[in-house]
């Protein structure tokens, strides 16, 4: 029955240079599911994503991808096995054109142009900008490109780090709508977000992190009605 989970983490801890930032987090992500990770600034959400993608070493715990335990997760291997990652910042190649950015997303794939046509259908606003350097895109367009770039590899799992950060409310909605579309194609999404309500609208489940640990997990309704939500979330801010 384990095969229904595309990504499983068991008690993973990770951090920087011996400093443990994420402490014993477990999670499971099913095909076409959106799992939201919430939590105040500095609670270790980005660190968790980096550890899941193999950018940071695991200090404890283990990872399973499509039912296979991973010996030593590292980014090149993760991409090959169908995991896409969109970092919180610096998530496009600024001096490359939109087209070149998309090509790099499917590096080494012969028919990347056909894939690009499919991806552009999901992100039509990029069509007119194909020959512009990514540097010239607006914030919203850049996030769209970052998502599109990750989709070029045809991932099974997408790890998204605050894709709506810094965007105007209208744009946040559009980005969330697009993630919803992506999920409909069967991609599992682990979504780190600060825009709690927008994120919970497209989520199947979610959990809240504080101080590197998972402190609450549930459905969007359960999270919104959780009586400690405000304290965990806002009490620890600033």
């Amino acid at each position: 029955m384990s095969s229904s989970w595309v990504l499983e983490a068991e008690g993973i801890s990770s951090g920087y240079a011996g400093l443990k930032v994420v402490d014993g987090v477990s999670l499971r992500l099913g095909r076409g599911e959106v799992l939201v990770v919430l939590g105040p600034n500095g609670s270790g959400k980005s660190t968790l994503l980096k550890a899941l993608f193999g950018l940071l070493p695991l200090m404890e715990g283990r990872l399973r991808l499509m039912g296979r335990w991973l010996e030593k997760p590292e980014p090149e291997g993760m991409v090959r096995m169908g995991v896409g990652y969109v970092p919180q910042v610096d998530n496009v190649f600024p001096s490359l054109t939109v087209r070149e950015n998309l090509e790099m997303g499917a590096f080494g794939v012969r028919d990347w142009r056909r894939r690009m046509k499919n991806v552009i259908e999901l992100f039509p606003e990029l069509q007119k900008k194909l020959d512009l350097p990514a540097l010239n895109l607006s914030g919203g367009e850049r996030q769209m490109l970052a998502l599109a770039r990750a989709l070029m590899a045809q991932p099974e799992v997408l790890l998204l780090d605050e894709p709506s950060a810094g965007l105007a409310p209208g744009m946040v909605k559009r980005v969330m709508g697009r993630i919803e579309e992506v999920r409909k194609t069967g991609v599992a999404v682990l979504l780190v977000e600060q825009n709690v309500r927008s994120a919970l609208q497209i989520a199947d489940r979610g959990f809240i992190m504080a101080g590197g640990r998972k402190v609450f997990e549930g459905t969007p309704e359960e999270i919104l009605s959780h009586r400690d939500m405000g304290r965990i979330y806002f009490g620890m801010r600033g």
Partner: protein
Amino acid sequence: MADVAQLAANILITGSLYVLMAVGLTMVYRIMRFANFAHAELITLGAYTAYSLNQLGFSIYIALPFAFTASALLAVSLERMVFMPIRDRGGDVISLMIASIGAGMVVRHLLQQVYSARVLTYNIPLVSYELLGARVSQTQLVIVLLGILSILLFHLLLTGTTLGRAMRATSDNPGLARASGIPVHRVMLLTWVLGGGIAGMAGVLRAADTRLVPTLGWEVLLPVFAVVLLGGIGSFYGAVAAAYLLAAAENVGVLVLSSLGISTGYRYAISFVILILVLLFRPHGIAGSRLGGERE
């Protein structure tokens, strides 16, 4: 009129040689993010490789691909034996820079052991041409042709091939390049091969145009760094523009110096002055590449 033609020719010659000597340095800076002082010895090794073949009776033009290979091999060895281990152990750009100065010194002294410190010259036919009122030697003609050819080929590589685009992607954002599944290590190696190889060929041409000594590359390293900085560190097109700009400043400067009765031996002082002015007023160079500075 003839003077103007000769001046233009001299600018083209100096500038093309600067292009050939600077591309590798700027590419390596862009992708590996440190100033490689051993670039000087990549230039020098190419020149000595051609000398050995020239002694065996081969033309220096036949020797060019061998010079390319020798310097490319040296560049890759330095990366594998010195720079990569330092990076893997968490060494910063200063450690890498100092290591490159040391590694360059070792190579320079090895070359001096093998070839002595004597001033050497190639056996080359002393042919020269009269072109639009300017007199240029065969070597100088080859310098200009090869300089322009390498600009075109580099442009095609960087924009027209997947590998070239991967090089640009890696220099834009190495972390995202890894996250996209680009084989970053292979891209780095290719950068060393091309950068080192072209420096080796530039060394042959520089030695053919002047003379060959173990400090051949070391002597030109400063103007070459000036080209790289003036172009905006890591910018290929900036470096090309800067190479010809600096060449113009030097050649016009030399005319001015000699008309004032000052020794033209001060020509490199012109690059020093320009280098310092650039650092003061346009620290990002003429191409103003902010890209490199946007992330750590």
